[in-house]
């Protein structure tokens, strides 16, 4: 059985007012385990209790009931933080420091030698791509840059357990992709990642297991692949088919008491299109989208629509890529 990095048992949290009167029950009898080396996603709408769970794990809040163990120690134990990295929902950093000072400050809070710290700072600044702004005070940073430096501070100690609260919030699609790549990279390095988000596509892309909270209660938990597989349907991916071929398939399916519910050409997602455009713009900096090109683009679409039933050799590659 895999080693549990986080154990939550019967965890409840009630927020109270100044007089101790109950204001809201943010969590109700939550029990879950996060195993070593997995990427675990906490999902839920706003107010479902996912950030509360994360803050309870970090000792920023105290549980009303229940028990939490993180890396084998209670949540209130500060020594466990030696092996934890935390990226808050907003990057709550000292705005009067620059990137280097910020990382140096957080690095000093860990058992790291000066040389090791300096090396790590350089690595992280490069990793998150803010080399050009390393001497600039954080108050001059954009939201995306603040997220990047926030991520760098979370990784300063090369943690075994990384907790990310809405990691892609405030990032542009490139940043989002980089963040997702980084999470996968962390997993490959054997680290455990716990993230909470309400951006479902992001979670789906990177998480091994997810838990869905609603109203402070755990509603669903399991492996992403298992949870998302439609057991009653089968999906086939082929090269482009003619109408005749599709009719034949329909007949074959009918013989097996199955029905063809839809035939369509897969489409790339917007993220892929965006990233490709940015990538091309970098390689061809002078190129612009002109009105002629726009007209040509719509004309091409029209032709494609007309010749819809004829296979074409010049179909763009991405049209053949499997739908996600």
């Amino acid at each position: 059985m895999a080693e549990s990095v986080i154990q939550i048992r019967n965890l409840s949290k009630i927020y109270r007012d100044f007089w101790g009167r109950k204001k809201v029950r943010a969590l109700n009898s939550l029990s879950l385990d996060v195993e070593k080396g997995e990427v675990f996603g906490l999902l839920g709408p706003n107010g479902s209790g996912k950030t509360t769970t994360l803050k309870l794990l970090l000792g920023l809040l105290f549980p009303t009931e229940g028990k939490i163990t993180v890396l084998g120690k209670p949540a209130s134990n500060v020594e466990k933080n030696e092996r934890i990295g935390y990226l808050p929902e907003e990057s709550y950093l000292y705005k009067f420091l620059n990137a280097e000072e910020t990382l140096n400050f957080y690095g000093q809070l860990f058992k790291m030698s000066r040389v090791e710290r300096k090396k790590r700072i350089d690595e992280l600044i490069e990793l998150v791509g803010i080399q050009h702004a390393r001497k600039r005070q954080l108050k001059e940073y954009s939201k995306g840059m603040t997220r990047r430096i926030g991520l760098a501070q979370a990784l300063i100690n090369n943690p075994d357990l990384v907790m990310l609260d809405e990691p892609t919030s405030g990032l542009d699609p490139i940043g989002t992709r980089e963040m997702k790549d980084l999470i996968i990279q962390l997993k490959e390095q054997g680290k455990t990642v716990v993230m909470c988000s309400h951006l479902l596509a992001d979670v789906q892309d990177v998480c091994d297991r997810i838990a869905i909270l609603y109203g402070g209660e755990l509603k669903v938990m399991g492996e992403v692949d298992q949870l998302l597989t439609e057991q009653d349907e089968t999906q086939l991916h082929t090269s482009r088919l003619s109408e005749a071929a599709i009719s034949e398939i329909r007949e074959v399916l009918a013989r097996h008491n199955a029905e063809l519910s839809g035939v369509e050409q897969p489409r790339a997602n917007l993220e892929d299109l965006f990233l490709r455009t940015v990538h091309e713009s970098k390689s061809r900096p002078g190129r612009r989208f002109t009105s002629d090109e726009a007209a040509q683009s719509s004309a091409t679409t029209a032709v494609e629509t007309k010749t819809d039933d004829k296979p074409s050799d010049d179909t763009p590659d991405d049209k053949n890529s499997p739908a996600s």
Partner: protein
Amino acid sequence: MIPNIQPYDLMTGIKHWATVVGTLTGVFFVLAVILVTISRVVPLLWNALLALFTGRPFPEKFGERLVEGLLAGPVNVTKGVWNGLLDFALMSPRRVWALTVLTIRESLRRKAFSVLVIFAVLMMFAGWFFAGGDDVKVYISFVFRVISWPMLILVLLLSCWGLPRDIKDRSLHTVVTKPTRKSEIVVGRLLGYSAVTTAAVALMAVVGYIWIVRQTPEDARSQLIARVPIYGTLTYLDREGNFAEKGVNVGDEWDYRGFIEGGTRSRAIWEFKNIDTRRLNDQLVIESNFEAKRMHKGDIGKTLLMQYTLINPKSGDRIDVPQTHISEFGENITTVPRQFTFYDRDTKQNRTVDLFDAAIADGNMKIEVRCLNVGQFLGMAEADLFLRTPNAPFWFAYVKGFAGTLLMLLLVILFGVTASCFTKGPVATIATCVFVLVRQLRPFQEIFERILNQKPGEEILGGGPIEATIRVYTHLNPQVPMHDHLSPTGSESVDFLIFKVVKQIDGVIIEGLRLAVNVLPDFTQFYTETRLANGFDVSWDTTLLPAVTLTLAYIIPCLLIAYYSLKNRELEAK
């Protein structure tokens, strides 16, 4: 203000320190135990009561849970205190340093040093405003005030608003999710603010010193001195020659000075202890400043006449110093050489003695002062006569003077950071101001003085707060016993009981106030400015040691309060 002149030895310092530390930690320990017990026991008892009267189910394992609840207070609080001490013991110097540097950077980048601009502007205007004056006192007082007041506001703002802003901006969240102990956060903040304050005060003090020296005209530079006095304790003899605790009151409302009557056996006697003759430079310099009270015009062309007599307390030898006319509006400085010839009244001939052998025995000596004009009075307080040793360098006294100011600012930082650990910026500022000011305000001072001066078994005139209220309401003189003149019920035994209860409650309140007097800091201990402005050295034993003791006394209780406040606070509480 009456200066404190009696040396404050190390033992007294330690005793004072222990009193403050003990009182504060004791009070908070008891409060914590009570709170924990209440939080455990009261809901249980309430549920049990509800069960009895409403038919709800009676709490399970009631007895067991009640015992547990009653024990929870002392057990949990003791455990908490132990954990707290452990947290401080396990502090990492590296993390404390990181937090200290962060605090310094924060203060600098948030323009804390703009206080220097205010200082510079004030100094520029002062140079123009005071130009040509030759009263050094004014310059010294001005420099001290122009530095300490803006700095006081600055340290209040820094210390009271720093942590609450961190909590509000949630930048502290990123710190506490690292392996940072709460004790390190508190100590890091304290050290950071202390470093900024020390640097600012040092810088301003250097500029202030140059300003004082440049501003003082050449002929007034002699006023820039730091006299090093040796003080004695004062007692009086009345006109019959009997011991008297106080001198005669000539009708002054301010009974700071006691008076001796001229031409009688009335005397003022100063007793000096532990005189180190090596410090006296082969002479005895006696400086005094007496108030003359003429009961008749007398010889208007001459000031009153007085005489010092040096007395060896061991042998009883008396050495008369020649009579001198006092300076009625200034200091009298009498220099007696070590080899001294005087007229011995016993042998009725001149005698030459080594003063240090003849008058001083084991470092002890008495000086007797008498007024020689019949029917005239001389007034004196303990600080009005002292032996002078060679002057200390003025710059050194000036530095020590600012050490007192700095200690005061550090204490304010300590209170500010402590308050900011459990409350928001504005409330922390008000709480710190109250804590700093409450003993300094005159009405409170009077109450505290009465309580402090109360002798064992003695009742305070007019009684405690409840008795005083009754007396005000019934227009009853504070001198007369309450039970002799008031009878609220008509029954003697019931009235007696009521008065007894009132006295008991008052007793408890007064004991509480006595506790408060011990706990509330007396900031007058830090006022070194008057001493320096009056041309005295700022000595370690009379001024700096009490100030250091006072500051140190609050460190442990404040650190513990700050630590527990931060530890038991949910930083993310909604």
